[in-house]
């Protein structure tokens, strides 16, 4: 065995620990003093964590309306259009994960908008939930603010460099994709959507719809108004097997005579980057229409 720390190594360890402590305390003071701008998350996964943590860590920021869904809903940036919305739409996730996080927070909003797409077949985002549920981290976040995802030093640094120095919009929906690349991506998406569900996918989708129904029924009982909606995709994708099959199953599980569905937007020629994600301009158009419809729906 190697010998333990000798006297000659003590200054080394003191300097190491002191540096760590100075950074820890110094950065915490900067955060507490409001000198550090929080980051919205510099990656899709981090953006999801920030959203989930903010709902839990800032009870005073909770709003009466909540939007649940996947990146299709996240790209609508509803809170920027309506200050009464909390965005719990997770990239790579779905409405089910949003419901789980909402339930864990204990928040009962007045209104919930639920995205209904076949992203539901992937079930709960266990990685995100594990990150949320790890014992001790919630407590640590409440007294050491720098452990909140939004204050991670690299994320804050990158956020500042990209948004303040380079003036780059970190918004997920981009329109920089060329026509050629877009056509290829849409064709690939439609090809994927045209394949029949495997037995496992089919079973997963049914299980997710069942779980979603439990959540919806639970919040309806609590007096929350729940509206289901199916966001627009590229027209060829709406004719694909999976799009159609999902709607059949979803409407079966959530019959329109019992549950509130938002009507489908009459426009057909939506422009997407990849078959499913609307380009920025169209996402803005759809989001504005969506909010107007939501206000008018019973």
């Amino acid at each position, binding site marked *: 065995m190697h010998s333990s720390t000798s006297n000659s190594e003590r200054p*080394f360890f003191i300097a190491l620990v002191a540096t760590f402590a100075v950074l820890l305390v110094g950065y915490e003071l900067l955060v507490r003093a409001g000198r550090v701008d929080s980051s919205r998350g510099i990656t899709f996964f981090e953006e999801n964590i920030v959203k989930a943590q903010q709902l839990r860590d800032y009870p005073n920021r909770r709003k009466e309306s909540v939007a649940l869904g996947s990146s299709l809903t996240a790209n609508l940036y509803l809170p920027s259009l309506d200050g009464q919305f909390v965005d719990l739409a997770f990239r790579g996730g779905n409405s089910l994960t949003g419901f789980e996080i909402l339930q864990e927070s204990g928040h009962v909003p007045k209104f919930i908008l639920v995205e209904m797409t076949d992203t539901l077949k992937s079930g709960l985002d266990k990685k995100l939930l594990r990150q949320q549920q790890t014992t001790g981290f919630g407590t640590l976040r409440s007294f050491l603010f720098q452990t909140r995802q939004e204050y991670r030093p*690299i994320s804050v640094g990158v956020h500042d460099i*990209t948004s303040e120095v380079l003036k780059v919009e970190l918004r997920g929906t981009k329109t920089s994709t060329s026509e050629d690349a877009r056509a290829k991506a849409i064709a690939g998406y439609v090809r994927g959507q045209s394949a029949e569900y495997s037995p496992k996918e089919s079973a997963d989708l049914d299980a997710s719809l069942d779980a979603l129904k439990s959540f919806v029924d639970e919040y309806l009982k609590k007096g929350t108004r729940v509206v289901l909606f199916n966001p627009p995709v590229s027209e060829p994708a709406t004719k694909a097997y999976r799009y159609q099959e999902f709607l059949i199953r979803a409407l079966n599980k959530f019959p329109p005579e019992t549950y509130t569905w938002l009507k489908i937007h009459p426009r057909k020629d939506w422009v997407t980057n990849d078959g499913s994600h609307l380009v920025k301009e169209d996402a803005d158009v759809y989001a504005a229409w969506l909010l107007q419809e939501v206000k008018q729906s019973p």
Partner: protein
Amino acid sequence: MIVGFFLKLVIADNIKDYTWWIAFPYYEVVSFKTGLILILAYSVQIFTDFAGYSLIAIGLAWMFGYELIQNFNFPYISQSISEFWRRWHISLSTWLRDYLYFPLGGNRKGKFRTYVNLMIVMGLGGLWHGAAISYIIWGLYHGIGLAIERMFADLLEPLWKRYKLEGALGWWVALAKGLFVFTFVSFGWLLFKLTTSTQAIEFVIAMWRNRAMPLDMSVAAPVILLSIPPFIYHLLATPRGMALRKSWSEKSPARYRRLEACAFGILLYFIFANAGSSDAFIYFQF
């Protein structure tokens, strides 16, 4: 061990949240410049993930009294593909040399046989990573690279020495060689990252097709920022970096040691404050 944890948790686990763009169908909308940045990102990720893992293992073993061999020796400063393989995954490359290359005759059976041996050994080395065609192609890609390099060395080395070009061009030659090897190795990683070799070709085609598209700074900025520490880590191992460290440590050993301690303190802080979302080590799949 602190360096190992830093490389894995802070660099690899954060940078992986960008390299998922190197997957079908996402790469179809990646621009040429962004694609290059992503290739760089994956090179950094695979190095920091695997070298980090090796350093953690070495550190843990040392705590229990075992001394394991060094598995990575700053591979991205290599000046040739053969040097890269002396610095990358040393435990595997040494095994391949001792148990495959030497028994096949190594370089003792003529030039042509040497080239063939290099390709056989690297092809089998690729197969070691998994029973997939893309791994064999990756191995052969390196084998062919090594063979061509050897061929050029056989042809050009006498001229190189005769006209003393190495000394005349010095630093620039070293930089060009280093960049070439890094680029060669980095493009090879596409065969690791993507599930099929066809996708690797499609990735490059998509990059070319989208060459008019602008660089996506929301990907480039964080990737470049996260690549700075591994870059500095490698710079410190270059002859100039080593000389600088030596002169500092000789001038004032106590101050140098304190500086080292502060550097470790900073790394430790970032491990605490900025560890990425946990993910399995890439090499666990092999």
